């Protein structure tokens, strides 16, 4: 366990982000109407520097290091999740730069908020202490509320922000109550101490209840049923680039924290101590997963707003990802197997590319045509061939059709749960496959509208050079990882070695 001074070497990317926040805020206070480009460049440079540092192995120890007196843990998992958060943050700033939904006067503050929120997410993935867990969750939450309400003249945006605050406050209250119960049992906020006491005294019943309450708070972050109600309204009301950010980053952070919590409390625990707790949690998370994907997919069928449709699609994807989290029994016992947890990370990376790509197309359409209705996408195949073709790729990848990356991601997830070999997991896999079929209908509907439906307006819709480049950059991994996913498997291998 390292002291504060020695620990600084393990939070260098977060440090870079902190400097970026300060820099962007300072720059934003000079003539904010003329400096949009400068602010975007500063934000992107900061994110890129942190990304490059992480990729170069800075703050990426070989083993596991407990830093800051055990408040956070630094290992490969933190590093690979940092890559996910930073990439999402960086692309969001690029999206927002080209979108007219974010006022130029707010651009600096928005950039700073995104950088700060990414910093909070990195700490979520690293938290090894209840206090740190809660603080990081609130950090991300409070910044998200502000980001959701950025369009102040739009009532829907204000409504979104308020709904986000109320749901967020209630769910983090429940999670905090659960944490206070764990603290009451253990007399210590460190997860290692909680685990030791739970092993000694048995996990049930208070430990189980506390964990369920914490998972409820995390379920809100992931937008899992029944904590998903805020999701469609917030996604629809927030500016589209921010929606893109919400649909990937906080969700990924919620999953990172869930995986971390499960590993620190139950990972490698011997047979009897946590067996019933682990199996109980697996069934609970499995049921939540089934409900989440079914509700998400069935609700998406009827949507006419593409932003809302993608919101339900992101709920459904939280359901698929939860299948991987449900493999908790595998991480217990003398030879823990983290295949399911790795599959969650693997799928999150693919989801990042395909979902951000789809949202970038929506961002451009909203900016050019002023509507996110499905009818706005009519004839997009002729009006903006590049956008329509890459959108089709992203949507087919979201369905999980081969040869796209979405197929590889789903394949890995299903492989992980089928190798569990119990009846419950077979049923879970069956529900997952059935849901993938349902999802084909609404994704394919957008593709049909883009290529087959006639629009009264046939003028071309220019995407813009920057957006076109980013779209291609996002489309390449969406196809490439479907065929050549070796590097991604290697990266996922860093999630709990």
């Amino acid at each position, binding site marked *: 366990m390292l002291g504060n001074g020695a620990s600084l070497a393990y939070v260098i990317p977060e440090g870079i982000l902190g400097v970026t926040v300060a820099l962007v805020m300072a720059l934003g206070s000079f003539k904010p109407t003329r400096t949009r480009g400068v602010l975007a460049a500063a934000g992107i440079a900061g994110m890129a520097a942190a990304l490059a540092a992480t990729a170069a192995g800075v703050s990426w120890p070989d083993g596991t290091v407990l830093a800051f007196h055990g408040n956070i843990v630094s290992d490969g998992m933190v590093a690979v999740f940092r890559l996910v958060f930073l990439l999402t943050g960086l692309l969001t700033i690029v999206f927002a730069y080209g979108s007219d939904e974010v006022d130029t006067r707010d651009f600096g503050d928005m950039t700073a*908020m995104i950088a700060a929120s990414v910093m909070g997410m990195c700490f979520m993935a690293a938290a090894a202490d209840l*206090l740190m867990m809660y*603080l990081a969750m609130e950090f991300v939450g409070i910044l998200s509320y502000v980001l959701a309400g950025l369009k102040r003249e739009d009532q829907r945006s204000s409504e979104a922000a308020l709904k986000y605050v109320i749901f967020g406050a209630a769910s983090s209250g429940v999670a905090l109550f659960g944490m206070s119960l764990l603290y009451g049992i253990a007399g210590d906020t460190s997860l290692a101490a909680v685990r030791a006491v739970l092993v000694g005294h048995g996990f049930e019943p*208070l430990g189980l209840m506390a964990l369920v309450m914490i998972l409820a708070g995390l379920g809100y972050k992931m937008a899992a049923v029944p904590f998903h109600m805020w999701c469609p309204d917030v996604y629809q009301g927030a500016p589209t680039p921010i929606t893109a950010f919400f649909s990937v980053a906080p969700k990924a952070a919620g999953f990172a924290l869930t995986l971390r919590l499960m590993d620190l409390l139950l990972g490698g625990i011997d047979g009897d101590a946590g067996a019933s707790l682990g199996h109980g949690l697996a069934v609970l998370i499995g049921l939540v997963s089934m409900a989440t994907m079914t509700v998400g997919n069935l609700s998406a069928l009827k949507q006419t707003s593409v932003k809302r449709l993608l919101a339900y699609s992101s709920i459904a994807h939280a359901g698929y990802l939860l299948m991987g989290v449900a493999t908790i029994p595998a991480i217990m016992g003398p030879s823990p197997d983290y295949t399911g947890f790795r599959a969650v990370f693997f799928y999150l990376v693919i989801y990042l590319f395909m979902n951000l790509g789809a949202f970038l197309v929506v961002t451009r359409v909203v900016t050019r045509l002023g509507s996110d209705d499905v009818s706005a996408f009519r004839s997009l195949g002729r009006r903006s061939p590049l956008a329509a073709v890459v959108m089709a790729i992203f949507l087919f990848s979201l369905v999980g059709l081969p040869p796209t990356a979405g197929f590889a991601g789903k394949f890995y997830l299903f492989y992980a749960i089928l190798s569990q070999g119990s009846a419950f997991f077979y049923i879970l896999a069956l529900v997952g496959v059935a849901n993938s079929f349902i999802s084909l209908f609404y994704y394919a509907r957008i593709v049909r509208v883009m290529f087959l439906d006639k629009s009264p307006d046939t003028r071309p819709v220019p995407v813009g050079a920057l957006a076109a480049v980013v779209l291609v950059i996002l489309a390449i991994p969406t196809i490439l990882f479907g065929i050549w996913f070796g590097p991604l498997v290697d990266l996922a291998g860093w999630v709990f070695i």
Partner: protein
Amino acid sequence: MTAELLIFYFMAIMAVGGAVCVVLPPFGRNPLHAALALLVSFFFVAGIFVMLSAHLVAVLQILVYAGAVMVLFVFVVMLLNLKKDELKGARWTPWKVFGVGAGLVMFTKLALAVVVVTEGETPVNLAAEGFTGYGGIHDVGAALVTTYLLPFELTSILLLVAIIGAVLVARRQTGGAS
């Protein structure tokens, strides 16, 4: 039953009773009365902190919650200035009945679980265990800048960004930089 236990029960009942009065009629009907009921709850929670040797937290509870947060609540109540007919009693809907039922089940389960876990535990004598300055300014301050330095610093960044967020949300869309 010792005197300490009696005092604890008194404070606990007052704290929970105050919290219940915040939402239930007759106090819950009037926002200002509800805020005052919350004040009672805050005070007795502070009392429980004192009994736990958390002196600094008890003082902060009074200063920050009973002081600052309460002023904010009263300020908001006065700002909204709701009329009498806007404060009609809430109606019972099936969902609310379901919610109350679920809450009661949850409460019973939690209470039973707490009883099971605390069975056979005996109180700890802090002074005998060597925690002489426990809960005082010195000990809390030392913990904040050593063991909990990272959460402490992170909180300061969070507060900074939250203030900027609040300004951002409150700022007018059109019209000069003021």
